[in-house]
């Protein structure tokens, strides 16, 4: 299940005359169709699978016509592979220049998972070029964005690229601007937030099940329990045993229940689900007691939507139960406690003890590295002696190849020797990142997304949209890496601002290097606040969590398939 499902679902393809649809996998492709269309992202791995299948067909004496569609574009490397295998001639090759993938009503992504690593580690600017291009495309559709604010090295480069592209284009878009400002923000401005465990519902689902292309894989018994099994379970009073078969379950704001609960803090979720269940129950009761024909007809109209809600409620309750089991466990609590200590800058010793214990127990390397990075960024580095000790512990436990992991992390500055300036303390204080006595059921600050810690990146955006902008927090901006800029893009003639007064202004926020679900939740929360009074559209290179972010840096001996 790739991100293709987000733009073209099987039904649509079928309606366009496709007879059979196969997910691409290793092994021979058995089909009677004469025409075969492969839709793939340019990845050498896929090329090999395809060549094998084509060769197999040739051996079996089958004559077929092949087309290959690259999304978003083909690479020379891929063509070379096909050429070397001697099958290039069999294909008609197309490109489908899809660069921005819509994920939800307010979230779009380029799906470039490696951009952070590519630029910062390898110095490869290709992904930044794609970022700039996507912005040009956006402006072509919605008009030139008058105000651009940005922070960070990548943002600066992207801004320069846009300016150049505009000049080269000569002709200007004459579309009236619909988006009034753009905020560019680099991921390495805020490496603290993604390393923390997300505590919104959607964020936790992502941490535990890892959301891929808006869907998670759940046990079949949760998503589609068969009638028979249900009856069995009811009669015996036993829970349905998990079948072990995983099926995808989509998460999208079309799901009414989900859109209401996705952004809330997990601790209040049970209450919400309970209330929802009662609402539906009430409705069913009312339905039974209705007498008149017209009333029944009215109810029937709503029944379908209620049934849908009912089903999704049932599934979400199951997910919540599973997550609760995990969040209640002492190891999870301990991890959160360590994170909170680091964020608040207290009780460092306990954190160090916890970190050592995790290594000794050989917990997942992701967990250890995440904590270490968080330790590093909240303490402005790690004391050399302690760092040496930790390195030894990690390398002896997880294997010597982790030297390369450290090499990567050090090059990025995610792990470094301590410098005496208490940078993070200043930032935390100035930006008010730690909110105590927070009301989670009726939050008044974005800090609810991490149960008390306000994500730094979103706090910066919050300041940026105020009238005084970033000027009021100049000191903090200087402490954060990379240049800060604020520019006005002159509007082309003919495209006068016709901001309709009846609509909230829209700000486009571009997270270069990835964004977490909790940060999205925090932004949605911000737009609902009166003082902000604007809508946000979020654009990013990739939806991430801490694990995915560091996945690029951790050295693995066995290549992942």
């Amino acid at each position: 299940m790739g991100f293709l499902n987000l733009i073209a679902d099987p039904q649509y393809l079928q309606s366009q005359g496709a007879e059979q649809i196969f997910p691409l996998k290793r092994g021979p492709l058995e089909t009677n169709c004469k025409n075969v269309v492969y839709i793939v992202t340019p990845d050498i791995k896929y090329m090999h699978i395809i060549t094998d299948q084509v060769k197999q067909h040739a051996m079996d004496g089958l004559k077929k016509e092949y087309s290959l569609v690259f999304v978003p574009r083909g690479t020379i490397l891929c063509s070379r592979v096909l050429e070397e295998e001697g099958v290039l001639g069999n294909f008609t090759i197309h490109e489908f220049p899809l660069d921005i993938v819509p994920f939800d009503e307010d979230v779009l992504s380029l799906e470039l998972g490696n951009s952070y690593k590519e630029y910062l580690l390898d110095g490869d600017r290709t992904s930044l070029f794609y970022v700039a291009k996507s912005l040009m495309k956006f402006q072509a559709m919605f008009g030139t964005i008058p105000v651009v604010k940005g922070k960070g090295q990548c943002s600066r480069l992207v801004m320069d690229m846009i300016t150049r592209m505009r000049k080269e284009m000569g002709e200007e878009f004459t579309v009236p601007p619909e988006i009034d400002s753009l905020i560019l923000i680099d991921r390495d401005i805020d490496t603290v937030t993604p390393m923390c465990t997300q505590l919104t519902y959607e964020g936790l689902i992502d941490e535990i099940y890892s959301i891929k292309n808006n869907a998670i894989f759940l046990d079949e018994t949760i998503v589609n329990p068969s009638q028979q099994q249900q009856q069995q379970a009811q009669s015996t009073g036993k829970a349905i045993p998990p079948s072990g078969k995983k099926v995808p379950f989509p998460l999208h704001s079309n799901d009414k229940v989900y859109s209401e609960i996705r952004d809330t803090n997990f601790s209040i979720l049970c209450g919400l689900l309970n209330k929802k269940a009662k609402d539906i129950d009430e409705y069913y009761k009312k339905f039974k007691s209705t007498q008149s024909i017209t009333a029944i007809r009215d109810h029937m109209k709503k029944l379908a939507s209620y049934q849908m809600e009912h089903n999704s409620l049932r599934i979400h309750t199951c997910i919540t139960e599973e997550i609760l089991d995990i969040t209640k466990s002492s190891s999870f609590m301990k991890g959160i406690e360590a994170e909170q200590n680091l964020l608040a800058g207290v009780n460092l010793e306990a954190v160090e003890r916890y970190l050592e214990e995790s290594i000794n127990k050989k917990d997942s390397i992701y967990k250890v590295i995440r904590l270490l990075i968080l330790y590093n960024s909240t303490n402005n580095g790690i004391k050399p002696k302690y760092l040496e000790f930790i390195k030894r512990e990690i390398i002896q436990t997880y294997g010597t190849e982790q030297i390369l992991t450290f090499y990567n992390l050090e090059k990025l500055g995610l792990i470094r020797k301590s410098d005496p300036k208490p940078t993070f303390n200043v930032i935390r204080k100035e930006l008010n990142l730690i909110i105590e006595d927070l009301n989670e059921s009726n939050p008044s600050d974005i800090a609810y997304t991490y149960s008390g810690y306000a994500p730094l990146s979103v706090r910066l955006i919050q300041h940026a949209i105020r009238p005084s902008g970033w000027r009021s927090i100049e000191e903090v901006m200087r402490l954060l890496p990379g240049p800060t800029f604020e520019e006005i893009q002159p509007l082309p003639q003919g495209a006068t601002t016709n901001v309709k007064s009846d609509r909230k202004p829209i700000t486009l926020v571009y997270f270069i290097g990835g964004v977490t679900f909790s940060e999205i939740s925090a932004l949605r929360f911000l737009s609902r606040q009166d003082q902000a009074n604007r809508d946000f559209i979020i654009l990013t290179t990739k939806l991430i969590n801490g694990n995915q972010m560091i996945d690029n840096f951790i050295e693995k001996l066995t290549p992942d398939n």
Partner: protein
Amino acid sequence: IFLYEGFRNPDFDGRLKGYQKAIDCYHTSKDKDDQLYGKLTEEQIKLEVLQKELEGSLQEPFSGMSISDTIFKLISLNQGKRANSLKSEFKVPDKRFWWIKIKALSILNDWEELMKF
């Protein structure tokens, strides 16, 4: 870079050569980090040689495991003595060694040994 190649070399001798090159590189550098990495890579050579010996005498695969994993496996195979010598050889802190030992013994259900310890 040599290290990267070293790890990917399936051939035992080739791998060791790769490590040695990496070590030479690390030692020419004055940076303290690199010195540490050099030392750790030396340990890796020692470990792989040792693992080869163990494979020979115990008829069990050891290659590719980290130091902690090797100790864990040795305890699981009732080779406590060998585990102890590994501990001192690589200066494994007591704390971590105990963790490994407890984990291994509890999997073995060797409560007697666990109590003694």
